[in-house]
């Protein structure tokens, strides 16, 4: 079995940004990377089909989010084992990012997902509704409540509704 030539390019072009979103959602960078890597493994297994799609990233995106939402508990253990293997020369996140990740972690999963998809994937309310299968009104409520909660948790930052 050999990879199609463009899988590597697709992987290199899309991995990092997807990891950022999953990182914001699960609150742990290593776990997010594992989840995204798993999504790409599943994509590679059916790459002959996916590579014909207009947007193979949409498929990977969906799988990664599904994995993240279900939290794929096994990877938590793997992450703990591999945590010490992280390269030491990687710069740590800024205090603001740590605060944001911590605040996101306190939101209910639906609000957190909506916020992450909006701010990190630039999805509109309609896009989020289509992605999550929720009504647009529900998504608006998630975004509103999520932003309000984040503003409070982050010490009164200014937010604007979509």
């Amino acid at each position, binding site marked *: 079995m050999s990879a199609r030539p463009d899988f590597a390019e697709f*992987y290199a072009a899309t991995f990092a940004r997807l990891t*950022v979103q999953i990182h914001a959602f699960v609150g742990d960078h290593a776990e997010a*990377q594992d989840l995204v890597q798993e999504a*790409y493994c599943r994509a590679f297994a059916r790459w002959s089909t996916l590579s014909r799609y207009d947007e193979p990233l949409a498929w990977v995106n969906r799988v990664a989010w599904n994995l993240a939402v279900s939290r794929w508990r096994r990877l938590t253990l793997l992450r703990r084992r591999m945590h010490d293997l992280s390269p030491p020369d990687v710069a740590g996140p800024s205090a603001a*990012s740590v605060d944001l990740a911590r605040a996101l972690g306190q939101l209910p999963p639906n609000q957190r997902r909506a916020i992450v998809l909006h701010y990190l994937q630039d999805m509109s309310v309609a896009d989020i509704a289509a992605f999550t299968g929720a009504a647009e009104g529900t998504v608006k409520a998630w975004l509103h409540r999520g932003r309000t909660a984040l503003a409070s948790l982050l010490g009164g930052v200014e*937010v604007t509704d979509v």
Partner: protein
Amino acid sequence: MSDELRTLFDRFEADSLAQTQPPGARAVQRTVRRRYGTRAVLVLAAAAAAIVWALAPGTSPPRSPEPIGPTSSPSAPGASPTAHSSSTPPAASASAKTGPSAAACDPSNASFVGQRLANPSPDVYQVTAQMLAICPDLTVRVARATYIGKGASITTLTRTGSTSVTLTATNPSATLSTVLPAPSCESVLIVVYVGASDPPSSVANVVPNLSAGDQHDLPQYLQLLGANIIATSWQAPAC
């Protein structure tokens, strides 16, 4: 009004991107190959185990359940005697037997014969001209056994009667009624089968299972006879 959250998320994205070190597409390929390899090994191991099991002395290959005809629902407790279940054997009419009839004659195989018997009307069994064309000297023994046990909780049903007929070219048709008695406190099971063996004097009480729609136990018990069940009728106790 500015959205400070946007700024925070931008900074978060930059931090997270800086931390991200993709394991690489090669790692993906290795993982997928390893999974395929593991799966292949497991499949081969399972196949080898199945072969060893099948070849081991004292074991026989798994046998698919004998097809049981669409047995009609049993009479419910308290139902009127006229609502007795009547049996419907799996054998279809002779005109429907085209493909299977092309098989070689195997009169000693109850399954072969049972699946080819015609059932022109309820409780009537018939060797067809097609079967006789394949097996001119065909002799088919069709037997009926009636089992009864008192109460719903009894575990064993006892044979209270049995009868058999032999179908041949000169006597191609016979009637074996599966009409149930009037509802009582007894579990009743009537089985019609093709086979040379005598029915066992007792069988496990499968009436509750049959009542629940599970017909799998029955052939398990009667396949011990080498029999092929072609009709069943049962009645749960009505007290």
